[in-house]
């Protein structure tokens, strides 16, 4: 890997968070470099979403440290994360169902003209970005509750990529997408990576991981099993890590 020696874009050090007695994330450390895609894998309930929510500001970690470009930062709420150019596509999509696509895309960052929300401009911008992501999308003037699962997902993706993020967190971004749309998201990830973004990609499909990711970190029961270079292992090795919770001998 190039650039392994320079300071990482993001470093999560020794992150822990518990809900009641359950240690959802237990002393996990991972990092991410510019222009790199790091896959986050693990069984259901392994703690993947919880870990990245500590970075996106949705949860406050119990302990551990977050560094951006080598600098320790405090991320206590989603506003802090946005201020660090961190954008997130949540597994639950986090859309306000009663608002239309452009209101959701710009939620919290509305375009303002003369002190008022500029809906026409926001819709025009939304049409532009959706034209790139999902050219079939036409439902600009209905609440997103009237959209299909995949359409909703493309709105959430558009929101994350519109604002020139430096760090992108994608929690199962293609779960609801058809094959063609999944392919478009794969191309988008490669394009963003070429632009120098760092991307955390939570993904269950091992083929997508092998295709899109540079490294893969595997979690089990809140613990980090290990991080491997995708080029140096086979998909069976990674599956083994997920299921057995052990690093393969040759990569260890």
């Amino acid at each position: 890997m190039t650039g392994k020696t320079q300071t990482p874009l993001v470093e999560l050090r020794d992150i822990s968070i518990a809900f009641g007695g359950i240690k959802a994330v237990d002393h996990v450390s991972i990092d991410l470099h510019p222009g790199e895609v790091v896959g986050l894998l693990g069984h259901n309930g392994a703690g993947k979403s919880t870990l990245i929510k500590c970075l996106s500001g949705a949860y406050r970690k119990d302990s551990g440290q977050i560094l951006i470009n080598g600098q320790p930062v405090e991320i206590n709420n989603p506003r802090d994360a946005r201020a660090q150019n961190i954008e997130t596509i949540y597994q639950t999509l986090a859309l306000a169902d009663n608002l239309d696509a452009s209101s959701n895309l710009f939620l919290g960052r509305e375009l303002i003209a003369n002190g008022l929300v500029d809906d026409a401009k926001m819709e025009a911008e939304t049409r532009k970005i959706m034209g790139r992501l999902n050219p079939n999308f036409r439902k600009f003037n209905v609440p997103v509750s009237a959209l299909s699962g995949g359409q909703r997902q493309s709105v959430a993706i558009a929101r994350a990529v519109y604002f020139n993020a430096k760090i992108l967190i994608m929690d199962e971004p293609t779960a609801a997408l058809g094959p063609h749309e999944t392919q478009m998201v794969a191309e988008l990830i490669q394009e963003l990576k070429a632009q120098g973004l760092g991307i955390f990609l939570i993904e269950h499909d091992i083929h997508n991981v092998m295709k899109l990711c540079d490294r893969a970190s595997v979690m089990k029961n809140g613990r980090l099993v290990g991080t491997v270079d995708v080029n140096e292992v086979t998909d069976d090795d990674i599956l083994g890590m997920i299921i057995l919770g052990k690093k393969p001998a040759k990569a260890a």
Partner: protein
Amino acid sequence: MSDTGQGVQTAAPRRSLFETLEIDARLLGMLAAFAAVAIVFTIWTGGTFVGPRNVFNIAVQTVPVAIMACGMVFVIVARHIDLSVGSVLAMSSAVMAMSQAYWLPSLFGLAYGSPVILVLTMLIGFAVGTAIGALTGWLVGYQGIPSFIVTLGGLFVWRNLNWFTTNGQSVSLTDPNLLMFGGTEGVLGATASWILGLVASAVAVLAILSSRRNKLRHGFTVKPVWAEGVMMALIVGVILFFVGWLSRYPIPEAKLKRMFEARGETMPEGYTAMHGLPISVLILILVAVVMTLVARKMRFGRYIFATGGNPDAAELSGINTRLLTVKIFALMGFLCALAGLIAQARLQSHGNDIGMLEELRVIAATVIGGTALAGGVGTIYGAVLGALIMQSLQSGMAMVGVDTPFQNIIVGLVLVLAVWVDILYRKRLGLTK
């Protein structure tokens, strides 16, 4: 994501007249209900129901509930409720009554009725209402106590602090400047009303034109020109009809004589003057317009609707939903104080029971106006129309001699019926899962 086939989406043929006009079915339903109430009572009363005098009275009586209903829309849209509005109205009114009649005159050595005192009184009253609302919002937003509980507590607390503030005494209010806010004592007269009506019509037309131009500039589809024209004609028609009608309601001769005498003049023989628009109604219109603007065109409103639609999504989008809750309830409190000012001016006194049970009327008006208790959906014009429908119903029943208990029974039934019809309608359209 593959939508229905190829390129059929944008130019789907518009179906009905109302769709072309972009009047939504709910508004249409409310207008129909209002028309039905008006027609039934007009026939029943032989025409007096729609006479200028009664239209004036209904308008004036609607104001306090309608003003609070505007605030209640935001509260309910954000998935909260405020059961304390009647008591907050009473508390603010009590402070205002005591301030102007006792506290401020003795503090500054000014006579009751000085404009300085009235201005200070209003500022104090608005501050009290806003502060009470902010406290409620802090308990709900930052401490996580359900709004139902906080405001149920508030209902008792403020109602009875109101009692202590005035020692349970009624305060009679006679300051002519204050009474201007009440309705009959504060009217614009025919000429000024007409001028205002024409200005408002011009503003409405310009607003429609500018929104159309804005849409065209971004290349969006717009309504056909004729549909835009019909909408303008409708809006202008309603404004001018209302203004014209109230400008036909004469001020009684005895009262005119008194007004001349107060200025040290004698009234010329055959002199007449019309009421025109009451100031309190103007205040309501101003509140409704500003609140609509906030709801549709400002971040604050957008965040309220987003929070009501999905609180988690709002939070994750970086919206400070706790502070938002404080602001929503503070605004509600301010509107309660404003309604209190208008109510005490209309009644020309502050009594212990001012605003009693008003919370129920306000919530009913809001819900009849199409605000969903589940949150995320609601309009200001709906709430105002809801208040107007309820007041018309009550006033009509009073005119034809229906007893008060029976009036209240009808109002209760109408509330349930309105929501029921709405649910049936939404089911038929497949809007609910």
